[in-house]
């Protein structure tokens, strides 16, 4: 697991299609790049630093064209050996590349870690440092906010459980070491059980998360509006064919149509609701109920209005119904605005005009925007942390009983610390607290 080579996506959150830059820094950067990138003249003996090489990047799942540049220490941003890959910016591609780099021994960087290294190596560019400060914490805040939400409930539960087993294990052994005369009970056997349980949990978590291709939750968007205002066209515009459509939930009636697509690593679920109005029709009533539910469960409601028609009483009462939810008022049919209304944005769903702007607005209003960059990395970090914890844990179990307790504790605490990086808790006092809540010690 040893590595002080770090990797991160350096480009800000641009949507699919743009160029993405992945940066690696550390003593293994060049070695990793040599292994996974090939181009004319790209070999250790002949590489010219600071030159862009066009070539092929290879991961387990795909082969893609990319540029690669090597900045030799100390003449780089961080002062260490740095590799930059400029690739297609699609989410799957960027993630695939990062994962490959991690598999080859790099570690996903913490928020601001490149900058920190630059500082420590006396390489901090003053001009560059202006303005970075705000970004770093914004990024890390958003990550903390999103991290657990984006992890499926099951996985986060498993991580918490595993770290609890490790806490039990560490406090058992520490209590016996710090209070050898007072802890009379056998802690050795139950501790091994805790370690094995933690290992089992982590192994399963890792397997689950590797199998899971997409984040299970995501942003829920409800499209609301009267009939024929252009909801379906907007739906189609959102689901441009260059975006991967994820699922078509079976059993969804035409009353509430759900479509999902991936946007920069976030799953977006769009619910197109039927027009909500009073109705005696039994079938329609069911549809209306579903629509109401979709609106209730939405993170944001897109309220679509037809600018070519006059504002009706029906429209007003429908707006009344959603106005307390987070929402965006959208004026559609922007090419024929006859009756302008108060709106957050004007679009043309048919020609996709301003739909990109609408997406930015959605991202901003739902608070996902600032986290986009971090999120994907956060996931990689989590996976890395679990792997790291597992490696320490395996060593602890392997040597259990063969080495003195204080040595086993080095591995247990390292595993525990890795998991705490995910849950964000503080290691130092938690073990002491656990000792005193569990054992009657101290005199």
């Amino acid at each position, binding site marked *: 697991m040893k590595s002080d080579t770090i990797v991160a996506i350096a480009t800000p959150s641009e949507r699919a299609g743009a160029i993405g830059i992945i940066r690696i820094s550390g003593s293994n950067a060049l070695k990793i790049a040599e292994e996974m990138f090939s181009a004319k003249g790209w070999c250790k003996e002949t590489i010219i630093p600071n030159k862009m090489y066009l070539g092929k990047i290879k991961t387990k799942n795909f082969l893609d064209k990319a540029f690669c540049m090597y900045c030799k220490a100390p003449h780089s941003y961080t002062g260490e050996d740095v590799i930059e890959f400029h690739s297609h910016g699609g989410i799957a591609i960027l993630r695939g590349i990062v994962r490959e780099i991690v598999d080859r021994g790099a570690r996903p960087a913490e928020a601001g870690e490149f900058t920190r290294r630059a500082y420590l190596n006396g390489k901090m560019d003053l001009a560059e440092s202006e303005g970075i400060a705000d970004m770093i914490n914004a990024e890390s805040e958003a990550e903390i906010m999103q991290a657990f939400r984006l992890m499926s409930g099951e996985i986060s539960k498993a991580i918490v459980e595993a770290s609890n087993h490790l806490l039990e294990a560490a406090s058992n052994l520490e209590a016996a070491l*710090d209070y050898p005369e007072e802890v009379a009970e056998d802690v050795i056997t139950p501790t091994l059980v805790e370690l094995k349980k933690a290992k089992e949990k982590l192994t399963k978590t890792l397997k689950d998360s590797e199998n899971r291709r997409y984040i299970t939750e995501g942003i829920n968007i409800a499209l609301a509006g009267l009939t024929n205002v252009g909801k379906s066209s907007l739906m189609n515009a959102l689901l441009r064919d260059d975006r991967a459509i994820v699922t078509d939930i079976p059993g969804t009636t035409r009353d509430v149509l759900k479509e999902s697509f991936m946007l920069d690593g976030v799953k977006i679920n769009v619910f197109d609701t039927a027009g909500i109005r009073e109705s005696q029709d039994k079938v329609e009533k069911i549809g209306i109920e579903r629509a109401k539910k979709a609106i209730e469960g939405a993170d944001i409601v897109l309220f679509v209005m037809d600018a070519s028609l006059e504002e009706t009483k029906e429209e007003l009462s429908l707006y009344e119904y959603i106005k307390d939810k987070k929402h965006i008022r959208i004026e559609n049919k922007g090419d024929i605005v006859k009756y302008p209304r108060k709106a957050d944005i004007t679009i043309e769903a048919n020609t996709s005009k301003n739909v990109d702007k609408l997406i930015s607005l959605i991202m901003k209003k739902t608070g996902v925007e600032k986290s986009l960059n971090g999120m994907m990395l956060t996931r990689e970090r989590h996976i890395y942390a679990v792997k790291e914890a597992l490696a320490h844990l395996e060593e602890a179990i392997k040597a259990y009983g063969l080495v003195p307790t204080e040595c086993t504790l080095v591995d247990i605490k390292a595993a525990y610390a890795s998991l705490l990086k995910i849950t964000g808790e503080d290691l130092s006092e938690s073990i002491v607290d656990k000792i005193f809540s569990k054992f009657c010690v101290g005199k």
Partner: protein
Amino acid sequence: MYELKNNKYEAIVIGAGHAGVEAANALAVRGHKTLILSLSLDGIANMACNPNIGGTGKAHLVKEVDALGGLMGEVADIATIQTRTLNSANGPAVHSLRAQVDKMLYQRTMKKRLEEIKNLDILEGEAKQIIVDENNKICGVETALGAKYFAEVVILATGVYLNSRIIIGDHSEWTGPSGFKGSTLLTQNLIDLGLDIRRFKTGTPPRLLASSIDFSKMEIQEGHLGNPKFSSMTDFDLRNDHPCFLTYTTKESHKIILDNLDRSPLFNGDITGTSTRYCPSVEDKIVKFRDKERHQVFIEPEGADTHEMYAQGLSTSLPFDVQEALVRSVPGLEKAKITRYGYGIEYDCMNPLELLPSLGLKKYKGLFAAGQINGTSGYEEAAAQGLIAGINASKQIRGEEPFILRRDQAYIGVLIDDLTTKGTNEPYRMMTSRAEHRLYLRQDNADLRLTEIGRELGLVSDERYDRYLKKEKELKEIRKNLSEKYKVKDIEYIFERRGETLPKTEGVLAKELLKRNYITSEDLREISPTFASFSPENVKIIETELKYEGYLRKQKRAIKESLRLESVKLPEDMDYLNIDGLRIEARQKLNKVKPLTVAQAERISGVNPADITVLLLYLRKKNAKTNIDDSCSPETDE
């Protein structure tokens, strides 16, 4: 007003307990004319509670104090009447020497030592106030008598004496421990100086008359042989002729306590000070762990010249009649005569976040604090702080940079960093689990880690230094011989003895042997005349280094980055509240602690790695503006 003639000092230490004596010694040995004040000269280095020195984590502190030229180790060795090594079943990093100490002998020996120190005056008296001039500069101390003593540095080492109140059931008095009077005047002065004063609580068990105890009903606990000593200056064998005894509380004891909880000041609200989880009272233990059938009670001698015994485990502030019943409910103590009742004691102390890692106060240059006033518990913790406060008070007088031990150098570093970075909400006790560098911070290498540093500080005598050099030299010799090779067929018996299979190779090196977990340095000394010629302790140290090697490397890797951040200094006067980009919580925490290095900032809970990067960016900008060279010279990785 009458003016004293000889009242000009360089340093004044208030309090002559375990912290005060070390502080005074360090100052005087470093050549400063020093005054130490004590409420009672019979209370110098008084062991008000348990009759032991050392134990887990604490032994390490004593060894470190000794390596730095402190007094505790030498005096403890002289006063020892029994020793045990705790954790001997585990590895050397957690082996902890624990000595039963003759309290009176300890006290007398320490008093005499102090009296013999050049540059040091000892005076009985109560400090009334710290004399501070209009620029908040420390000028000296005024006593209750109205006498003034002048010095540019003052060290507060007041222990549990500030506004101390002793509580036994519904009876309480404003007095100090062990029958000594308390200090009633100084707290108000400290509050007036704007310091954050709080109230902590601790306690002590009843003392019993040995002749009234039936020891046959208890497990005897003899000392262990072959233990190390606290001081590398000690040549004589430590006494080991006073056993301890182990007995247990009974169901009856628990019933007595539970029936009388309404009379317990801990539970009826009379005691408001924060007590510590590290030394719980017996009523605490029984309430908190109701399911536990019995609790240990160790009966330990208070000294060699007394028949009083200390009832470790029965610490209590219950009324005297309940104490009588409680004691008699314990097997072997049915007829025990109580000579002194147990009591709880509340006292004023200070929030350690008032302190810099030098143990100097942030608000007053020249004012230092050490020991229980800083929110710790324990003689050893106090001594360690006293030594550091004394050194730094001297550094201040000389205008030198403060002396700060890092967490990877010493338990003393861990202790002071914990106090000044995290603070504490209860009396703090050292534990080995607090030291992330535990495998390296051992009692067997405290002298190797710190003697050179102590020498530079001028605290290590020629004799002590020579002993250290001799040890270093022999270790070097031993390391040189680690490639000595043995034929497997010649040393078969060593493997057979342990029931292990023979190595497949023809020959095996000494270092390969020592790395195996079933082969000891004694085995090596048995098979090799070369190693037999070295001292067993030193071969053992090499064995320990080899056995820990892999784990030490792992630990080092985990903390490398933090070590780099230790070299990045933060100005004391930094205004964190106005640094853009820092989260509000981080701003507040940083502003409260005012860390001296970025590494210390990183250890504050509530400050995350992103905040640290923001801080580094801020430093870069700030230093660029003021044209200060901030280039730190980090070692290259790997």
